[in-house]
């Protein structure tokens, strides 16, 4: 392949003495010689002094020229040259380069003068603090950020409650189309993953229970174990965690990119409350769908349990269901379902809050989406623990 890599700006001057074009594939590495002549040292450049062929030549040249005074340059063996190569020559020595010898390659001289004229200076690096101050700064920054995050969350919750109140007092302002489409995306589309995950969770508990309880000869209690744990805890928590991964991230990314493209600002100046238009539909769709998904999860978890109990313990599905209805109080079901709306609010609020916190750059979008998922899952687990304590005290 032809390489006029540098030829474009050097023109036909490079084709000397029947020498063929230089080929990219056959690019010659940049090299130099310093020849001691009568008038003083002569720097003879050879090969391609171009960005891609330069390699370590700049450093070698600088070392060779240290404390040397040149009288002329010899460019007769120079193949290609570009501004990067010429900068290397310029930077190699503190002494100004001799004017003699450039006449062989007027284009190179022109380019060299251009590079020299730029006087590129390196900007001062940003000041770096010493490690102790830096760690103190980080701690201070962390505390400050935490406080700000808390204030921001409080403001967000306040606005959310206001917007929710406004929406409920005037139902006409609710954006039904957005609500329906979000319900489908965040709720209906999640059914397969929620069902499959909970099916396996139910099956795993059944295996554990069958293994342990058979040792005590109490294998029939496997049914109670499966039913209580699925209804009370697993169905709702697993579903909420899945939605935190699925919807909190989606909400944060959607609102974040809308913020970056100034869509949120456009709404605001149109007199549309972004909370009404964006947050409330998301919140309400999860509020509706999470309890329903929890019910799906319960059915799927029990189905997984039924299958394993049948296969491993020979307990027929009919016996399983009969035992569940007879011996497992319905309150376990209500305990599980009662947590769903709370988790729904947590997921939607954290997702939207992080989305609105996105600033102009791409990095903050990534950070905020991550934060949305992590915070949401963390909050779900903590709130579940609080629920467990409350219900325990209440004796439910």
């Amino acid at each position, binding site marked *: *392949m032809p390489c006029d890599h540098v030829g*474009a700006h050097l023109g036909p001057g490079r084709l000397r003495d029947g020498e063929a074009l230089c080929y990219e594939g056959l690019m010659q590495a940049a090299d130099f010689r310093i020849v001691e002549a009568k008038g003083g040292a002569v720097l003879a450049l050879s090969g391609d002094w171009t960005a*891609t062929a330069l390699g370590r030549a700049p450093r070698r040249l600088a070392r060779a020229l240290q404390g040397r005074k040149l009288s002329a340059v010899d460019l007769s063996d120079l193949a290609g040259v570009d501004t*990067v190569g010429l900068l290397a020559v310029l930077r190699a020595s503190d002494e100004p380069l001799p004017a003699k010898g450039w006449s062989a390659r007027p284009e190179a001289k022109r380019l060299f003068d251009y*590079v020299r004229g730029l006087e590129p200076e390196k900007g001062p690096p940003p000041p770096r603090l010493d490690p102790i101050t830096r760690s103190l700064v980080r701690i201070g920054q962390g505390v400050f950020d935490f406080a700000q995050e808390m204030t921001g969350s409080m403001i967000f919750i306040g606005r959310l409650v206001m917007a929710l109140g406004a929406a409920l007092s005037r139902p006409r302002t609710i954006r039904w189309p957005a609500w329906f489409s979000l319900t489908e995306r965040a709720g209906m589309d999640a059914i397969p993953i929620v069902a499959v995950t909970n099916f396996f969770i139910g099956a795993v508990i059944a295996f554990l229970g069958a293994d342990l309880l058979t040792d005590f000869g109490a294998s029939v209690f496997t049914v109670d174990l499966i039913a209580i744990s699925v209804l009370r805890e697993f169905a709702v928590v697993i579903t909420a965690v899945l939605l935190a991964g699925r919807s909190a991230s989606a909400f944060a990314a959607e609102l974040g990119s809308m913020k970056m493209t100034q869509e949120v600002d456009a709404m605001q100046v149109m007199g549309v409350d972004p909370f009404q238009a964006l947050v409330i539909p998301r919140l309400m769709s999860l509020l509706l769908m999470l309890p329903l998904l929890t019910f799906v999860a319960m059915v799927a978890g029990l189905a997984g349990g039924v299958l394993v109990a049948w296969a491993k313990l020979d307990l027929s599905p009919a016996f399983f269901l009969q035992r569940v209805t007879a011996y497992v109080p319905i309150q376990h079901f209500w305990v599980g379902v009662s947590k769903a709306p709370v988790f729904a609010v947590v997921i939607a609020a954290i997702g939207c809050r992080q989305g609105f916190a996105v600033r102009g750059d791409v990095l903050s979008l990534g950070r905020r989406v991550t934060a949305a998922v992590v915070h949401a899952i963390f909050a779900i687990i903590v709130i579940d623990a609080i629920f467990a304590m409350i219900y325990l005290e209440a004796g439910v």
Partner: protein
Amino acid sequence: MSAAPRIEDAAAAPDADTPPVEVRGLVNRFGERTIHENLDLTVERGEILGVVGGSGSGKTVLLNSILGLRQADEGEVLLFGQDVRGLSESERAKLERRTGVLFQQGALFSSLTVLENVGAPLLEHTGLTRDFVDEVAAMKIAMVGLGPESHHLKPAELSGGMRKRVGLARALALDPELLFLDEPTAGLDPIGAAAFDELIRRLSESLGLTLFMITHDLDTLYAVCDKVAVLADRRVVEKATVQELEASDHPWIREYFLGPRGRAAAAGASR
């Protein structure tokens, strides 16, 4: 580095007059909609070509087809005489080193500082030391008229005009022969746009670049471009100097150059 392949290649190699960009019979479709139909375009060596066309006439699609970012439905694109589609990875990389692109929004890497952005292609494609890469990057930044105080800023801290300048410096990092600019002056104030025109003209003179420039800016066409290619009716209807285009009788070209803004730009250029 034996002599034999060199001679063989020399025989097979197209001469230095090979146009850097040659588009033949390009067809681009989006579903039912045809954007380009048998589009032909050649950019000669050392030429500054402006590409104009109405909104939706497929200027950016054409650029993407040339850059290989979009697979054309039919037709071929030759860069330096080579069909970009039939190339191996390494041949493609070599070709990419000979071209630079300034995207419309600058497309700077947001996690890197200005200096690192400009140095990125050098670190990627050359074996230069980190220190020297920084020096080269500083030179390229000086080339586009920015001072050392900008070196350690992040793209988010730059104004639109500065972002374009840094994008240009990055496009120039490897001393490409062929430079693609997508609306370089869009979104700049008139003073900034005029300064950018001047910068492009000076750089192309000093570095002997071939430029392919998509632009809406009539002043840029008058001030910078040697030739202008007009995209209309799904192909390049004309490629000529601005003066010749003023005399064209194609309705869209007439409206473009002889409308109120075109006349103002022409008057400005002749002053």
